């Protein structure tokens, strides 16, 4: 099997062009799905018998929480590929993922806190999921801080890649330790509230929203990666010819 397509993909001019082609597809598809899910979730889906309309923030909260983990794994895989095969583009992709993932994590925390106010009566509860999201945010911030503290981009790439890999091994440990910690302290009602058996009519818009968020992630990474390529290749000949 020939690997030329793969090496082609890893070359900045090709990647720059391909990303430019696929980004609008991601963008428009995600916009369509998010609008559809918003209408479905806010208007068509029935209100919860316990939480009323308050539960509808789920349609932002759950997809953001899902995406925050997804982005971290994508970032770690990209970092690993960059470290093993020394592909600069993979490092650039990891760099592009980090701020987006951190934003999703922040969004999940903010919506969780807004949701908590009517449900628990306070803005913040040391609930297992919120706490692991908070620690995930710290991991993202550490990754970005390490990346920013090197002057040499190649060292920044490789050092932060090692950190991303150490982090991705630790994420499950952190997640389960926080769960364990939380079940020792919280009354059972909270965990019961956390895992409601959700009705299908409420679930369908959630899945559409998750798909929309995934596509949005694809769009945002493509755009950021194009920016990264421009920044890193600013002295390259192919850019001068293209301009």
């Amino acid at each position, binding site marked *: 099997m020939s690997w030329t397509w793969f090496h082609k993909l890893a070359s900045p001019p090709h990647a720059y062009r391909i990303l430019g082609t696929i980004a609008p597809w991601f963008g428009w598809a995600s916009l369509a799905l998010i609008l559809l899910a918003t209408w479905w979730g806010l208007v068509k889906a029935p209100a919860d018998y316990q939480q009323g309309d308050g539960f509808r923030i789920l349609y932002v909260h759950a997809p953001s929480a899902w995406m925050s983990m997804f982005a971290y794994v994508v970032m770690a895989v990209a970092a690993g590929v960059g470290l093993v095969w020394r592909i600069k583009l993979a490092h650039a992709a990891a760099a592009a993922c980090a701020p987006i993932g951190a934003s999703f994590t922040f969004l999940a925390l903010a919506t969780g806190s807004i949701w908590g106010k009517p449900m628990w009566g306070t803005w913040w509860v040391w609930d297992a999921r919120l706490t692991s999201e908070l620690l995930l945010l710290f991991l993202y911030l550490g990754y970005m801080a*390490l990346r920013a*503290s090197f002057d040499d981009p190649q060292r920044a790439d490789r050092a932060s890649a*090692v950190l991303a890999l150490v*982090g991705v091994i630790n994420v499950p*440990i952190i997640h389960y*330790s926080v769960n364990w910690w939380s079940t020792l302290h919280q009354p059972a009602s909270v965990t019961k509230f956390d895992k409601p058996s959700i009705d299908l009519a409420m679930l369908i818009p959630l899945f559409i929203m998750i798909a929309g968020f995934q596509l949005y992630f694809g769009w945002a990474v493509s755009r950021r990666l194009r920016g990264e390529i421009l920044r890193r290749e600013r002295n390259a000949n192919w850019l001068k010819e293209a301009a």
Partner: protein
Amino acid sequence: MTAARTPTLAAAKLVFQRDMTLAWRRWDEVAQPLIFYVVVTTMFPLATTPDLSALREIGGGVVWVAALLASLLALEALFRADVEDGTTEQWVLSGQPLGYLLLAKVAAHWVLTGLPLVIMSPIVGTGLGLPTSAWGVLMSSLLLGTGTLSILGGIGAALTVGVRRGSVLLSLLVLPLAMPLLIFGSRAVAMQMDGDSPAGPLQLLAAIFFMALSLGPIAMSAAIRISVEN
């Protein structure tokens, strides 16, 4: 590779002995984290309440937080001098497995900073109202926890070795990764005091320690190579 290469274990032993000798000649620097540890734990009764029965509630957690911070404080300079004077470069070129040499260095560091914290912890714990029955669990949880933290911190120190203002960054990188240690360690102490068996969290701490021991040297040597190669 020549046939006269030093056996790896002997090389690791040399690294360990060298660090111990160096530390012995500057023992006042070695004592600093320990003093920091005692000072931090003194702050909690002053900030909250001198009532021992109230302090007992948070005592295990306070000892653990102070131990984490104290050992992090000492980790920042772990590789700095060796990278600056070229020693690490020689290790990379020596043909020895770099991970073992770094692990020996981390082990020496742990003996000098982690172990004193563990030995000191019953005294500090008593000040926070921990009963003598909790001493064993406190010490064994800290024994496993500081060992893991030394390895995690070694990875962080190797990554930040060439960075300005590395100490803040190091804490930012390592502390989130150390949260599980904090959770299991302080819960083990609390469970012992509540009359439950602390075996569960202690076993989890041991599992994390062995994972760090097996995977940590790989990450550390990768990080050191990145810092040295450029």
